């Protein structure tokens, strides 16, 4: 039985080998490793799944270890026999070469294979997503409409901050609860905790704002809770727009912002004499639209 099965196996492998081309860097791999590569490179079809059932146990184990670990575990869907084999034989004495091979594959295998994450219900996928770093979460809004709606959910920010506060705030100084001091156009960011790589003069937490990306002069005028009121010049090089400045309200944590209408400053006055007030209503919760932040602002010239 074992002989016959191994013939099946070698047949499949030979067929696959003939089909695939040899690339240069294969020459440094051992023949066995080469064979494995072949299998990895092609989508594994049901054909093997059927054949595999005929194999003798020892052959099957060897064969299974030839797969990238991820896929090997994926095949546990038919799997009682296969899965238990993996579990039992990895703890028992395996041929040394196979173990090495297994480790090799574990390390080199980076090819992503499809996982049916879509079968998770919204509530569970949500649980995974709010654990992502802020940047990834914002980026993944564009993965699909479903992901976008989950990440845009009003609960998301709250849970995400809560989670990162509990688990990860110690990792990076750009995470929540950084205190920023603003003095004479210099911004000093004090991290929430003492971290060693703190430089003290870099400001990168406003990099998401268009005016700052364009390097226009800007000033932090006021703050309220986690919101900042930023004033920037519209285009310092354009004479037509001279004296016009732009205000925007932003949240450095969620990296959201809104731009307020342009304001023309009284000519001849020094801009730093404009007094700005910034008042926010407390968060109001709307059942349909989630948290709505009502911000009021007043701008006036001070004498």
């Amino acid at each position, binding site marked *: 039985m074992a002989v016959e099965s191994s013939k099946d196996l070698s047949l499949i492998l030979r067929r696959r080998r003939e089909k695939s081309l040899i690339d240069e860097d294969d020459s440094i791999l051992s023949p066995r490793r080469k064979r494995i590569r072949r299998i990895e490179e092609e989508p594994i079809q049901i054909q093997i799944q059927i054949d595999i059932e005929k194999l003798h146990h020892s052959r099957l184990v060897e064969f299974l270890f030839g797969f990238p*670990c*991820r896929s090997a*575990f*994926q095949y*546990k869907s038919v*799997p*009682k026999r296969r*899965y238990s084999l993996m*579990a039992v034989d990895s703890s028992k004495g395996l041929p040394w070469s196979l173990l090495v091979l297994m480790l090799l594959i574990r390390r080199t295998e980076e090819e*992503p*294979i*499809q*996982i*049916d*994450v*879509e*079968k*998770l219900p919204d509530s*569970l996928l949500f*649980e*995974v*997503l709010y*654990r*992502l*770093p802020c*940047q*990834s979460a*914002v*980026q*993944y*809004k*564009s*993965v*699909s*409409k479903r*992901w*976008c709606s989950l990440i845009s959910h009003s609960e998301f920010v709250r849970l995400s901050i809560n989670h990162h506060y*509990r*688990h*990860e705030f*110690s*990792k990076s100084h750009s995470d929540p609860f950084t205190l920023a001091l603003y003095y004479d156009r210099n911004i000093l960011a004090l991290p929430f905790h003492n971290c060693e790589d703190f430089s003290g003069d870099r400001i990168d937490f406003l*990099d*998401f704002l268009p005016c700052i*990306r364009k390097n226009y002069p800007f000033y932090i005028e006021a703050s309220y809770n986690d919101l900042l009121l930023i004033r920037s010049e519209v285009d310092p090089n354009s004479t037509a727009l001279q004296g016009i400045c732009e205000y925007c309200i932003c949240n450095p944590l969620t*990296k959201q912002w809104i731009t307020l209408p342009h304001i023309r400053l009284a000519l001849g006055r020094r801009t730093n004499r404009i007094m700005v007030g910034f008042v926010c209503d407390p968060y109001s919760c709307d059942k349909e639209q989630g948290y709505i932040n009502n911000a009021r602002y007043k701008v006036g010239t001070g004498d």
Partner: protein
Amino acid sequence: MSNTSENPNPSSSSAKITLKTSDNELFEVEEAVAMKFCTVKQYFEDEKDNDVAARGSSTVIPLPNVHSAVLARLISYCKKLPQSNAVADNHEEEETKKKERKQYGTPGDLVDLISAANYLDFKEGLEFFNQALADHIQNKSVEYVRKFFGIKGDFEPHEEEKYREEYAWAFEGVDED
């Protein structure tokens, strides 16, 4: 499976509970382990009034939504819980935990484990598996995530383009695939 000798108080918690999985496998687990699964606990408590609990392992609790392969991993995770569930209090510890999470299972496994842990209402497990899955996809590109999970982007190209422009900062500095 019978490691009652390790149990400091055998009289109270050496009781075994039998769980039956979707593929009709029977698992005999210690009560302490089974009680981590709130769904099982609830079932037990409901039955207590009827004095079924007294019969101990003769009660078989059916878990029609859990496959034996998944349950086996959940049980083994349960057994090593005490060390691995505390919140890391320093950077090094967090890194070790991250490594542990990374090696715990393939994303495909994790999806199964999350579904099962959710069904069983196994909170510590859910926390761990969710984080492990999140670790797999953090700081990656959108294309990587789509390929990884086999998701088809359903935004119009111009919608996506607009979003990318607006949130350009989020698309910078992601890890190489």
